[in-house]
């Protein structure tokens, strides 16, 4: 007999000082408070191999208004498609790369991450999955988190990705982060529309 799980409740509007104190959210009312950040929006570690990238995005509600009190969390493999998960694994060259990041949105609903482009990872039935990042969203007005995925616009492997294949073709575009023109480290734009026109695909997992 399984135990009843503890139900989810909203993260509310005031989480930033506890969960993302150094984020884009300016929470400190008078400069007298601080809290050390454990999980931030920069995932790049000195030992991480692969392509450094930036992800920029904006999250909006059913009216198209920015959600200025959301928390976006990302979980991804390293550049060689390995998750920093199992304990006691063989040490890896990029062992400090956790693959996990957190960004609170600013007043314009914008979030951003500096990270490494993930590699392909194994999928169902041994089929490889295209490089992707799992995205988990929390905010005031969300009683439970929603999950989506970020894929990259410049990956031919998207065509054969077993998860993208389960998404109606006309909605797949909402999961694609678009590479922006310009020099320097590649920047990918990933906007999230929680509800309404061109609503982002969320997964029942």
């Amino acid at each position, binding site marked *: 007999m*399984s*135990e*009843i*799980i*503890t*139900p989810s*409740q*909203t*993260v*509310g*509007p*005031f*989480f*930033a*000082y*506890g969960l993302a*104190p150094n984020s884009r959210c300016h*929470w*400190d*009312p*008078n400069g007298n*408070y*601080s*809290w*050390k950040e*454990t999980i931030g929006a920069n995932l790049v570690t000195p030992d991480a191999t692969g392509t450094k990238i930036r992800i920029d995005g904006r999250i909006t*509600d*059913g*009216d198209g*208004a920015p*959600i200025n*009190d959301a928390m976006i*969390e990302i*979980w991804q493999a390293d550049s060689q498609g390995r*998750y920093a*998960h*199992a*304990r006691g694994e063989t040490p890896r060259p990029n062992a400090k790369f*956790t693959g996990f990041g957190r960004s609170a949105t600013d007043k314009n609903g914008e979030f951003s991450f500096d990270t490494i482009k993930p590699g392909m*990872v*194994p999928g169902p039935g041994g089929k490889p*999955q295209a490089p992707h990042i*799992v995205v*988990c969203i929390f905010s*005031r*007005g969300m*009683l*439970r988190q*929603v999950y989506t*995925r970020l894929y990259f616009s410049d990956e031919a492997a998207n065509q054969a990705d077993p*998860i993208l294949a*389960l*998404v109606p073709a006309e909605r797949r575009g909402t999961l694609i982060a678009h590479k922006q023109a310009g020099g320097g480290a590649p920047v990918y734009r990933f906007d999230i529309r*929680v*509800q309404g026109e061109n*609503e982002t*695909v*969320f997964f*029942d*997992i």
Partner: protein
Amino acid sequence: MSLVYPKESLSVYPKHLSPEYRSTVKRSPSKPLIIVPHTLSELTGPVYGHDAIQVGDNDLTKQHKGEPLGERIIVHGHVYDEDKRPVPETLVEIWQANACGRYVHNVDQHPAPLDPNFTGAGRTVTDKNGYYKFITVKPGAYPWGNHPNAWRPNHIHFSVFGHSFLSRLVTQMYFPGDYLFPFDPIFNSVTDEKARMRMISSFDLENTIPDWALCFRFDIVLRGREATPQDTDKH
């Protein structure tokens, strides 16, 4: 140990759209969620161990020059999976209002005083038995704009990780016997009574420290149970 995460367990969760809580109306997906299998990307998750925290991060009464005002309390408990096995070495983060019901956040405009000796944030990592403990002050109730004369019951926000990204949980811990329960749409967004009880801590007389602090116990059950042979056959 191979864990599975049956979706049926999520049936006790609030609905995304729970109109009594007004902010859900424009912030809930309107299209059906897409059903996909759990892949390595979902079945793994961030691992934050003891190196993620510092000694004293779990004592919210010792972060400033003086002690905060309010009722000093101990909040402790175990983190379990659905088989009631302990979840060891997992990060537990909390944040809360001060004893007057005011959060240290620009956006909180409740006309109650900030406490210069209280930030209201803490973190710890469960031990090998899944046990955690915080020392804090009891948060006050506070008004909010959801409906006329709306007040939130006293609560502490919890964020917990568990064995995978699927066991990730953000919830709120309530206090036993709160008179505001019947009027709170966030608490009541969980419609199953037994599941609502999961969110209410119990008064723990045995672990109260005489002449110092009252104690509340809050056990947390995360998604995840051991795969049965039947589950294994599916893969």
